[in-house]
């Protein structure tokens, strides 16, 4: 440790000797801006490319890729977007994704809010072990669950059903949701409910009228998290929704890839359309997310 100190002190005094302090600050600032811009460009490039490829004719993508903005605008066309709707079942898949997400969100928010409340308000032995169980189930990966789910669902007739895939998504999103709501309810002081009780409200009413409104930020965070899980999911949807008309967007987009021909334009158009809901949701509700992350701790 002491050696590295001496090295860094050497470097410091060396650099310090060359430039006065003010200018060193400015050099640092300039370097920072450079790195920031570089990072933004690198991070944004794939998305830029997605948009570009979705509005270019096929040859431009495959034969002579054009990436410079002026060239892109010159060859601008929205054929890919049109074909995605006209030649394929795109609306159906979008609808499926949305419905499945809604079912998953409603169930997750409901179940986790109730559970979070119960866990903080009622004492019972084995709390810690219950917590460990929740956290352990958070670690189960989709592939591990989807493989047996396929067989169970098939026996129960839940394959190719909204319920079936929603429940699968809930398996992934519920543990973290419960954890978040549990921790969140811990920050809601019981004093508020006690005040309601003193005013004559029953436990149920204090839950409904006091605890739930105060838990709104947590619920929003859970909703966003569940949406992300559901909208994003490829593994479970591919396995549990073999019928193409019942598929959600992620597995459906795979079907654009055929033996001899990859419909890149349509894939990129579909990708762009698929990316819009997550953006919208996050930008409408970013504060609640940060709140949820802070209390969630994971």
């Amino acid at each position: 440790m002491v050696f590295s100190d001496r090295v860094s002190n050497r470097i410091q005094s060396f650099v310090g000797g060359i430039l006065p302090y003010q200018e060193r600050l400015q050099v640092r600032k300039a370097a920072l801006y450079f790195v920031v811009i570089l990072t933004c460009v690198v991070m944004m490039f794939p998305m830029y490319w997605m948009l570009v490829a979705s509005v270019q004719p096929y040859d431009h993508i495959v034969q002579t890729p054009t990436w410079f903005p002026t060239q892109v605008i010159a060859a601008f066309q929205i054929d890919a977007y049109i074909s995605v709707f006209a030649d394929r079942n795109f609306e159906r898949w979008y609808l499926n994704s949305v419905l499945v997400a809604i079912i998953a969100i409603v169930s997750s928010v409901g179940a986790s809010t109730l559970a979070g409340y119960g866990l903080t308000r009622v004492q019972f032995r084995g709390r810690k072990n219950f917590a460990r169980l929740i956290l352990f189930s958070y670690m189960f990966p989709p592939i591990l669950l989807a493989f047996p789910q396929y067989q169970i669902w098939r026996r129960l007739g839940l394959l190719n059903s909204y319920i079936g895939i929603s429940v699968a998504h809930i398996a992934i999103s519920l543990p973290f949701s419960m954890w978040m709501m549990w921790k969140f309810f811990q920050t809601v002081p019981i004093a508020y409910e006690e005040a309601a009780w003193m005013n004559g409200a029953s436990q149920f009413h204090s839950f409904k009228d006091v605890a739930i409104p105060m838990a709104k930020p947590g619920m929003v965070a859970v909703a966003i998290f569940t949406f992300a899980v559901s909208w994003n999911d490829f593994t479970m949807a591919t396995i549990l929704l073999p019928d193409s008309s019942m598929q959600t967007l992620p597995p459906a987009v795979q079907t654009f890839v055929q033996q001899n021909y990859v419909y890149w334009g349509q894939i990129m158009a579909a990708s762009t359309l698929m990316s819009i809901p997550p953006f919208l949701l996050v930008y409408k509700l970013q504060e609640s997310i940060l709140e949820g992350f802070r209390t969630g701790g994971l």
Partner: protein
Amino acid sequence: MSTLQDTVNNWFRIPKKSWGGLIETLFEDKKALIGLTVGPATLLMLFASFLPILWALNLGLYDAGALSPTWTWVGIQNYVDVLNSPAYWDAFWRSLSFGFGSVAVQLVVGVGTALMLSREFRGVVLARAMIFLPYLIPTVVVGMVFRLMLNGNYGIINVLLVDIGLINQPIGWLTSGAIALPTLIVANSWKFAIFITIMVLARLQSIPNEFYEAATMNGAGPIRKFRDITLPQIKGVILLTLLLRGIWMFNKFDIIYIMTTGGPGQSTTTLPIYIFEMAFLNFRLGQAGAIAGTLFGFLGVGAIVYFVGFNPAEEVGR
């Protein structure tokens, strides 16, 4: 209380209370309250999560195939076969490299980006918004876009590299066995490094500015400040991420399947891909069950490390 309601009540022999009242009463009873509140979530988890796990573990003890309707008990034979098969262990090592290689890349990029974004500069809000975007893109899209960009013939990456003059021939990023897995790691990290950035940034923003200013007044330069102030504060987040994200990436299926489906050859067949192939392409369910069982075993080890090392349950226990 109209006579109609009375009649209906009598019909179903429900006590003379409304449903709301019934729920109210239940809420009062502590035991019923627990059941009512924690119940739905527990039931969902039992059905959606624990039942399938138990099924899979059970399945591993039988010789079963999708083509044969009956199962034959074989005990641990499946496990023996699986653990003796080189294909299994190859897949295991690939999962390990992919998993922990991904996390390593994500940590370096993620923490670095977080440090950068924690500074104050003009446009920092815009920069943060832009840099958070990759995390919002669905994984399928990430896979597809990178597949296009890395294409051996017309991928834009190759085009740019050749144009700049760094390489003479386009590189088959996803089609040559040696570099396919590292390429997947980078593509995977593009999205998931940002998750780490978000976590670390949240932690960084809670470090009071005075800590740094006090160090400055005491003579500390930027390297010292990072080592003595920043690092101790983010160590916890980093270790936790290493463990949990490592496990998650070890078990990742989607992005690999989308970009290479385990190819070229078997060079990117990680354990999740292996299970998929075993179950849905080879229809050897018993074997797949055994592999799932080993996967569950690894999860168990990871969980033990997690609970012993971090004691997360402490946060909610009272």
